[in-house]
């Protein structure tokens, strides 16, 4: 790009901005608008979920009780912890503490990895129990007893939503972990300073958003109708 400014530009300042403050404001507003689009995106899924939960409550309750609540709860705690480390890494970037920034970013990646590992175990269980809609759906022999009576047909819809919602969430996690690793590389070079840390903040907001989605998914999918 042609340099049009006569004065020397501060590090990290793109040519279209007048100063770093304007750039940071644009980045922050940009991610918030993006998160709004994400809310609408997940919102369509949540709305569909709500309608089918209302239509086929028994099936949804039965399907929910097959999920392993301990794994779900562990993942909830794990993600909350990752939100903490993420917030701490943003804070460290703001204060210019390079080592702490890198350490907290790596911790966030590891917690994200643990979440995906537990999720993989849960997905595996579904294949073992033949309750994967479309691909491997034959719950009659093994899991039927635990499904609500008459709910078998519609339980497939419940598990469809289970996979669609958690799958979409996991996809966002994987994208987020890729962004975090990119941040680790940049942070190690010492690119982030107290006046330029917008990328850490932006990715942080995204990460918190993905956590919040899970905070809604956990009760909606795991805790329906209580456990007895």
């Amino acid at each position: 790009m042609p340099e049009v400014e006569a004065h020397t530009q501060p590090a990290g300042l793109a040519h279209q901005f007048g100063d770093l403050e304007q750039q940071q404001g644009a980045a922050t507003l940009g991610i918030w608008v993006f998160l709004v689009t994400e809310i609408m995106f997940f919102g369509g899924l949540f709305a569909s979920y709500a309608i089918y939960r209302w239509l086929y409550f028994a099936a949804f309750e039965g399907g929910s009780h097959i999920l392993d609540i301990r794994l779900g709860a562990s993942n909830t705690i794990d993600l909350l912890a990752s939100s903490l480390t993420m917030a701490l890494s943003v804070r460290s970037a703001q204060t210019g503490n390079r080592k702490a920034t890198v350490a907290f970013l790596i911790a966030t990646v590891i917690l994200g990895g643990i979440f995906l590992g537990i999720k993989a175990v849960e997905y595996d269980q579904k294949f073992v129990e033949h309750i994967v809609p479309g691909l491997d759906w034959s719950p009659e022999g093994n899991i039927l007893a635990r499904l609500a009576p008459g709910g078998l047909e519609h339980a497939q819809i419940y598990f469809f939503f289970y996979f669609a919602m958690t799958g979409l969430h996991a996809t966002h996690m994987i994208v987020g972990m890729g962004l975090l690793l990119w941040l680790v590389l940049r942070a190690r070079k010492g690119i982030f300073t107290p006046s330029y840390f917008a990328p850490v903040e932006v990715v942080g907001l995204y990460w918190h958003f993905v956590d919040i989605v899970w905070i809604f998914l956990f009760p909606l999918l795991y805790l329906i109708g209580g456990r007895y």
Partner: protein
Amino acid sequence: MSTATLEPRVHAPRNYLNADYGIRSWLFTLDHKRIALLYLVSITFFFVIGGSFAVLMRIHLTEPQGALVQPETYNKLFTLHGIVMIFFFLIPSIPAVLGNFLVPLMIGARDLAFPRLNLLSWYIFIVGGLFTLYSAIGGGVDTGWTFYTPYSSTYSNTQVTAVAVGVFITGFSSILTGLNFIVTIHKMRAPGLTWFRMPLFLWAMYATSIIMTLGTPVLAITIFLLALEHLFHVGIFSPALGGDPLLFQHLFWFYSHPAVYIMILPAMGVVSEIIACFARKRIFGYKVVGFSSVAIAVLGFLVWGHHMFVTGQSVYAGLIFSLLSFLVAIPSAIKVFNWTSTLYKGSISYDAPMLYALGFIGLFTMGGLTGLFLASLATDVHLNGTYFIVAHFHYIMVGGAVMGYLGGIHFWWPKISGRKYPNAWAALAAAIVFVGFNLTFFPQFILGYLGMPRRYAFYPAEFQVLNVMSSAGATILGVGYLIPLIYLIWSMRYGPVAEPNPWGATGLEWKTPSPPPTENFAEIPVVEEEAYAYSAEETAGA
């Protein structure tokens, strides 16, 4: 700054067009103006594709039993015509071409806030377009552009998944464009350019961007679910599998009704600019016109149920949706009345952009008022699914959005290309488009009112006269679209060189050379007056 290796033939000053040559400088450009031109070329391509589907349909419908194609092919023609024209021409048309080009220029910035995202949005658009073209070549799709289940599920034997993926992907290009505009308009306005000094085109872009960012994700997730349903055969929308087809329609129209305003609001913004310039007057009721754009964007999200009056949604929902749909008429009428009041006692000149703008006002008014027939529960039961609907939305989308788009292209062409086009040809083309358009679509109002259903390859013999009129009009309309394509391309090489402000218009984009330099402005301008200070300019200047 890179030194010039290629000196242009004439001693033109450096600008964004001659700054660099070669295909790489276009495909990897981050310049909003060049990206706008990438979009211009791409959507013109899709316009030609979508238009040829329409040509085939109109030829087919010259005879009651169908003159050209098999009924299955006819189904694919109207489906692909709708999909290509809506998702690949109308929705990106003004925002991605004129918006991309003008938003930074109008607010006095060097570029959009996120140039890389801007380029990415074009690539996403192209990938989505390729999926759609693939599906068109590899078997077509026959669900109608709305993808209603069970056409798109139980009874689908065509490329539904490929085209759904194409539309899904393209949606993200729309989201990124909207996001970019919102942030740019919030954060990058030149000193002194307050919200109420912004040109109304920017208000329209802002309102459009809100719809793009709020609505498009819902379409994306809907199509995502439709594709998953296809892949895994689990009932979400398909009634045969235990799904709810009405849910699909709710989710689909939650986006696709506001999408109508994605198409029409930018055209309204263009018309505000043109009317003010060619009447040499400040827009009457500037603030109200600006807020009416936002009001249309907000109300537009609350009216989707009027597409579903005959689907079995609750009567009470129907009543509310009907009432809310009528409310949209208020901000729309405010705009029309304010444009008319702006013309009152203006010193009007009838250059080509103005002809398109005046055509827009008339045709949009007709399209809008016939919309009220469809927003009324009782008349909608009679008119739903007939050619009346087809005529109504073509008056809005072609008579409105395309006229606005062409008006805008003609208004800003000297700025975009640095050249002027032959005004007599342009005026002639505008007149031909207007005549051809009305001849094509007015008979369809009558056909629909008489009960001819849409989307049929055959019709009763007594409807032939009106159908032949419509086909004849389509031919004229096609000629009207072809002429600008020829003289605009011609003008790029042979047209007279345009001065910075050939129309004597207000606005920052006219204060920089034509075509603008890559960095838009030598110095970031400072704004000290309201938009459309035409009367002030005349008393002070000439």
